[in-house]
């Protein structure tokens, strides 16, 4: 561990490389987490199938790539396809569990996750797949710092998508309706907002965001039907850390997580990459607990 820290300080360019890399992949994590925060905040449904939507999006993009369709065009298709699937799942399952307690929605989405994993395994097989564009990386400082074009493309796409979704939420009537419903569903209904429609729209939008994120992931990493869980966990950690309804915080937390993952894996070993994510959650919860207990004392 100390050797690794020593390397980080003695060759700062390498550290810089890991931080840049962490920011690039963090953009995708933030996108997935934003979708989760949306559904969580608006509908109070904690979607455990989040990562599986992502992986399905990856498969859609990969499948199209097999027919020679560039992922840049495949990703919008994944977005649309997952929108449709999100709507179907909402009508079949989610609309029946919204009004119920936390555990019902957790169980329902967990069930959806299992069904999705097994279906993907049957349809696409259990082997690892990826879209290998084999693009030449940009190298700086005698290749000590390398930036991978696919990660850069993914980061830019994630930003573009995030900006589009945010402006939609701010400007459009539907976006306003969603925000109103999130604040107080009963009041929204009284004001004539069709909350049922808002819910189905929100859930579909989340699935579509995941689908696009999955398309980006298919260009960067290898994936298989059962790898969705690690994306779900990351999204939960980010949303827990950032809180609901605070988009800037979600993005910051997503980027931060990317950086912590990469540098943490360097210091403690790649083996602990995911342990670091969960460890981070514990730290965030402890800090929040301490902060909130202080606040309560002040109020008293």
């Amino acid at each position: 561990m100390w050797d690794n820290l020593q390397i980080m300080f003695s060759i700062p360019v390498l550290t810089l490389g890991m931080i840049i890399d962490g920011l690039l992949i963090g953009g995708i994590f933030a996108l997935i987490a934003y979708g989760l925060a949306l559904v969580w905040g608006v509908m109070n449904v904690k979607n455990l199938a989040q990562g599986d939507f992502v992986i399905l999006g990856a498969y859609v993009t990969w499948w199209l790539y097999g027919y020679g369709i560039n992922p840049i065009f495949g990703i919008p298709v994944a977005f649309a396809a997952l929108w449709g699937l999100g709507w179907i799942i909402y009508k079949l399952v989610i609309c029946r569990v919204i009004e119920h307690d936390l555990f019902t929605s957790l169980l329902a989405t967990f069930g959806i996750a299992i069904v999705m994993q097994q279906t993907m395994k049957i349809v696409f097989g259990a082997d690892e797949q990826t879209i290998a564009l084999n693009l030449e990386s940009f190298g700086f400082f005698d290749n000590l710092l390398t930036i991978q074009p696919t990660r850069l493309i993914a980061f830019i796409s994630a930003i573009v998508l995030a900006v589009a979704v945010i402006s939609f939420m701010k400007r459009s009537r539907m976006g306003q309706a969603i925000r109103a419903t999130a604040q107080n569903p009963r009041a929204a209904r009284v004001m004539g907002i069709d909350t049922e429609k808002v819910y189905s729209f929100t859930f579909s939008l989340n699935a579509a965001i995941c689908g696009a994120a999955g398309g980006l992931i298919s260009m960067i990493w290898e994936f298989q039907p059962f790898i969705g869980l690690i994306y779900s966990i990351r999204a939960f950690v980010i949303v827990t850390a950032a809180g609901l309804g605070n988009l800037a915080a979600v993005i910051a937390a997503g980027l931060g997580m990317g950086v912590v993952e990469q540098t943490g894996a360097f210091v403690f070993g790649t083996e602990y990459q995911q342990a670091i994510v969960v460890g981070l959650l514990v730290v965030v919860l402890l800090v929040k607990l301490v902060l909130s207990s202080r606040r309560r004392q002040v109020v008293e």
Partner: protein
Amino acid sequence: MFHYRTFMKAVAVTSALVASSVAANAADTILLGSAISLTGKYATAGNHAKVGYDFAVKKINAAGGVKIGGKSYMLEVKYYDDESTPARGGQLAERLINQDGVQYMLGPYSSGLTKAIAPVTEKYKIPMVEAEGASRSLFNKGYKYLFAVLSTSEQYLASAVALAADVAKANGKKPGDVKVALAFENDPFSLDVRAGVIDDIKKHGLKIVIDDKLPRNLTDMTATMTKIKALKPDVFIVSGHSKGAGTATRQIAEMKLSIPMVAMTHCESANLVGKYKETAEGMLCATQWAETLTYKDPMFGTAAEFNAEIKKTVPEYANKSVPYQLAQAAAAVYVFKDAFERSGSLDKDKLRDALSATNMKTFYGDIKFSAAGNNTAKPMVLRQIQNGKYNVVAPTAFASHKLDWPRK
């Protein structure tokens, strides 16, 4: 109304018929049993193994079967699908032995399943020749009835270490100056591979500069690759199933690393050439068997002939390479034939003794079992990806091509 007596009579008649048919069969066939993964996560590889068993049985029967004491016996295999789950594998082994009267077993697919079945065959003293379980934990339990034709997992990448030491000597470097980076998944198979590599590194006196473990859900190796950038090792050895091979190949290119030698497992199942094209050039891949090796035997001919015949008779493999899982399964059946003929009897204990004295040359390689039951006569082979093809480069005795070193 239900007539109990009539029912019992019917049962008696049926069982008598079944018994007599078994007896009739037993006169001229030898029944082998196998629980094999035909569905579930090992289905693809399990099917390779089954094709290998079936092909060998057909071939041996067509050549006159197994000759014991001047009499010919036909081989036959009874299969059950273990659904890739160890618990089911154990149950099915019991069923094969107790209900189907199987006296000789062929192995299942994977170390995990073999580990579940070996205690059962051991309990009933049923000899089992297996071809698909490589974990060394199978061979330190003192099993007497378990024999494996394949090289065990700690041998997988040990030859890469020897090769690195040889290359260093040839280039006027001391082995002690060769820096090695290791990245192994934290699972039983990969840790076995690692144990073998570490032993050989000590033996040849190489220096380990990076020793990373990879998580089961590996997606990204940036951290390990960054260490490689800093420490510039001469050899990089990776084992993390197909995702490890794929991720390493991809990120070595993405991060513009120049490592003179990279060795890994699972290149074929990761489809490195298909996915990563020229990026995969120069990778060294461990394999149990390759069709270009110079092994041969009187039953299957040379390795190349075996390969050609599979491609001709099994349409599934016409357009893809024949996996080693298939070849070693066929070799396992061949070992049974050889042992039966040497023991000159159908008695399972005599057969066990004959198996343990096996010393034969086959198209799959030499087969000779240690006291623990693993095959010590066949080395692991290293192939290098050269112009999109897998060419054997080590050990030098079997090499068809020269090693490309350093890797560009």
